[in-house]
């Protein structure tokens, strides 16, 4: 690490203590959870002016529990916690399981956290794309207020989430598991351990015999923030699933010009996002089995 002007590394034992530190050192303190992103940022000299790290490992944010509001994940839940928890093998949450599992490598998955993946505000990370597809909400607290936001609204631009310097993202809330609901995540990268060139998260709710009750598709790396493709919902909701319908939709997405990036041209991203969408949708439907499709 090259954060040479770091003056202290706090390890608070309670959330209040962490919030107080962020409040007291506002602007010069940064939250650290797994530390993977912080390491990358500091290596690139992008943490200028940061003099304190506040480690939230021990403030009690590593829980996964279900209640009547939904499935709650503490922000410090690691990717391997998600992979190893049987609840995410169910079709409703499968996209999140795949996204977490697909992150390389094992050592990163042991430390990288779900909260950190959102707070990075990077549009092509896999876990946030899956969370947006699953209609996840996030709880953000500061010393004197608490708010709940849709995860997609937390993204603004690279490394700059819509979260203030004295706020902590404490919890991700997923909707309760639903009948006949399935989800999937897919990505394409130039190597297995690369970041995604394009990735997609899909969630589908069916209603007997393949009638689409609700559908949501989210793409990463197409726009600077996770891109919810409205054409998918517009063209597919209320219709019966069929190869013709999928082909028709593939012609209509993505409905925006993909951003240029160093690794993939907009032309390539446009082509590959269609195929990824098709394959992810089929992967999701396969999870439900034949009787529902």
């Amino acid at each position, binding site marked *: 690490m090259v954060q040479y002007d770091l003056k202290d*590394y706090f390890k608070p034992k309670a959330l209040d203590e962490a919030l107080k530190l962020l409040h007291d050192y506002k602007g010069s303190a940064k939250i650290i959870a797994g*530390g993977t992103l912080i390491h*990358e940022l500091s290596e690139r000299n992008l943490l200028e002016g940061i003099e304190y790290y506040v480690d939230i490992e021990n403030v009690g944010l590593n829980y996964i529990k279900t209640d009547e509001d939904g499935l709650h994940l503490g922000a410090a839940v690691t990717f391997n916690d998600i992979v190893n928890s049987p609840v995410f093998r169910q079709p409703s949450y499968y996209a999140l399981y795949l996204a977490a599992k697909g992150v*390389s490598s094992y050592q990163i998955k042991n*430390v990288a956290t779900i909260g950190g993946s959102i707070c990075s505000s990077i549009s092509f990370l896999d876990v946030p794309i899956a969370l947006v597809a699953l209609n996840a909400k996030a709880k953000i607290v500061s010393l004197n207020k608490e708010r709940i936001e849709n995860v997609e609204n937390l993204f603004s631009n690279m490394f700059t989430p819509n979260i203030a310097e004295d706020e902590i993202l404490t919890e991700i809330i997923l909707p309760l598991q639903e009948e006949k609901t399935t989800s999937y995540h897919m990505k394409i990268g130039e190597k297995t351990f690369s970041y995604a060139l394009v990735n997609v998260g899909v969630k589908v709710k069916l209603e007997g015999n393949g009638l689409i009750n609700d559908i949501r598709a989210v793409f990463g790396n197409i726009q600077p923030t996770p891109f919810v493709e409205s054409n998918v919902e517009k063209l597919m909701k209320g219709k019966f699933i069929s190869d013709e319908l999928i082909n028709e939709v593939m012609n209509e997405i993505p409905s925006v010009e993909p951003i240029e990036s160093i690794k993939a041209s907009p032309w390539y991203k446009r082509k590959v996002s269609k195929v990824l969408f098709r394959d992810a949708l089929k992967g999701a439907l396969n999870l439900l089995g034949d009787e529902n499709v």
Partner: protein
Amino acid sequence: MKMYKKQIRLIVNGREEIVEVNPYDSLLKVLREYLGLTGPKRGCDYGGCGNCTVVVNGKAVYSCMYPAMKADGKEITTVEGLSKGGKLHPIQRAFIDANAVQCGYCIPGAIMSIYAYTLKNQNPTDEEINEAFSGNLCRCSAGYYWPKATKLALKYMKENP
């Protein structure tokens, strides 16, 4: 430059160590430069190659991007801590017997990855073995033999628990 030293307590390979560190020091730096344990290697320093892998509280982590301050009070195992009484750990023995070593630079990291994995799963499938090695690169292609070495190691462990 003003230094802001902090004192931390680590249990490294079963031995308690009290170390003064800078708040930004990585665990790798502390192990190599302050404690003289050169098993973990500094490869990419970026969380990509796996040469710095050590086991912290039973989990394999990249020590290059693991803050030393985070490791305060935790148990750390490096490749130096595997052999007992001059006898190699079954995984080390199996890596030699299966010819899974060429230049050897990546091996301390690779061994720690699979060591951590076998702590919780003694019967991994082929896919799980590959998953355990997913964060370790080997440029001499000895990595091709790591799964074979792992299976041999598991056999040794069962024969001689």
